């Protein structure tokens, strides 16, 4: 299934939406219980040797993700908003010490009850300046690319 990111030109956010073929309570459980999260986080080939979640505002989520090539990425998050089974928000802590890896931001996931299905919406809001600028820049590159064939070809060739 496809997750199309939406990147508005005037706001430093990336929005991704998705529909899951599962009731909302189950989706909530799968994303807030460490025993579940450790089973799916990262995707095929990844494993999660550490996943400890204290799911309440201010609670910590300690996580170590192991890549298919064996290298490990330590991620420490703090839960900012916990409103079961509707909203979960977290942000990375201590990202200043980290080089490379995934960008840091406040991630808010909202779940919409659709009976046997669940609407999933993630808003990644960037607060560190380079990452915020990158989000803004992407909102900008889309339209500029559309107006310039050479640029479109170039971006396609990347």
């Amino acid at each position, binding site marked *: 299934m496809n997750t199309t990111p939406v*990147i508005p030109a005037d706001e430093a956010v990336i929005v991704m939406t998705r529909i899951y*073929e599962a009731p909302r309570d189950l989706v909530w459980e*799968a994303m807030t219980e460490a025993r579940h999260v450790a089973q799916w986080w990262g995707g095929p080939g990844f494993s999660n040797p550490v996943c400890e979640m204290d799911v309440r505002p201010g609670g910590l989520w300690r996580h170590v993700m192991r890549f298919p090539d064996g290298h490990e990425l330590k991620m420490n998050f703090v839960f900012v908003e916990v409103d079961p089974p509707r909203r979960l928000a977290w942000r990375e802590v201590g990202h200043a010490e980290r080089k490379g890896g995934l960008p840091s931001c406040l991630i808010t996931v909202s779940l919409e009850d659709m009976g046997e299905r669940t609407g999933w919406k993630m808003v990644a809001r960037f607060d560190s300046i380079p990452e915020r600028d990158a989000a803004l820049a992407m909102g900008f590159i889309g339209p500029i*690319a559309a107006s310039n064939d050479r640029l479109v070809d170039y971006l396609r060739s990347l």
Partner: protein
Amino acid sequence: MREYSTDRLSTYWLNTFVPADRLSSTLFALADPTRRGILARLATGDASVTELAKPYDMSLAAVSKHLKVLESAGLVSRGKEAQWRPCHLEAKPLEAVFAWVEDYRRFWEQNLDSLAKYLRSIQGKRRREARSPKSERNL
């Protein structure tokens, strides 16, 4: 707090805040609406400084300062020939920005595919358990 607004552009500010590493300098250059406007104009073809300044209520000197930021980020090159030294869009530095968001998108897409698959597997398991109530498994 870093300030991007165009009316505060000054040499001091440029010297102080233009970051050294490549991605940062691209992002810095793109973070200003006037500079994005200039690039959008250049995406339609080369232009002189005078032409670029036309839509903005600012001096040629102010526009030149913006162009310097874009040039130092490698986003704009200036023609050597002719007095008007046409400005030209260079797309190459956008590659890093593109790659950055692409990585982000790829991680989350993979992560969400994985969650979908996991949800299917635990639902299947629970349905089987519902049919055989003796099961001790409590997933």
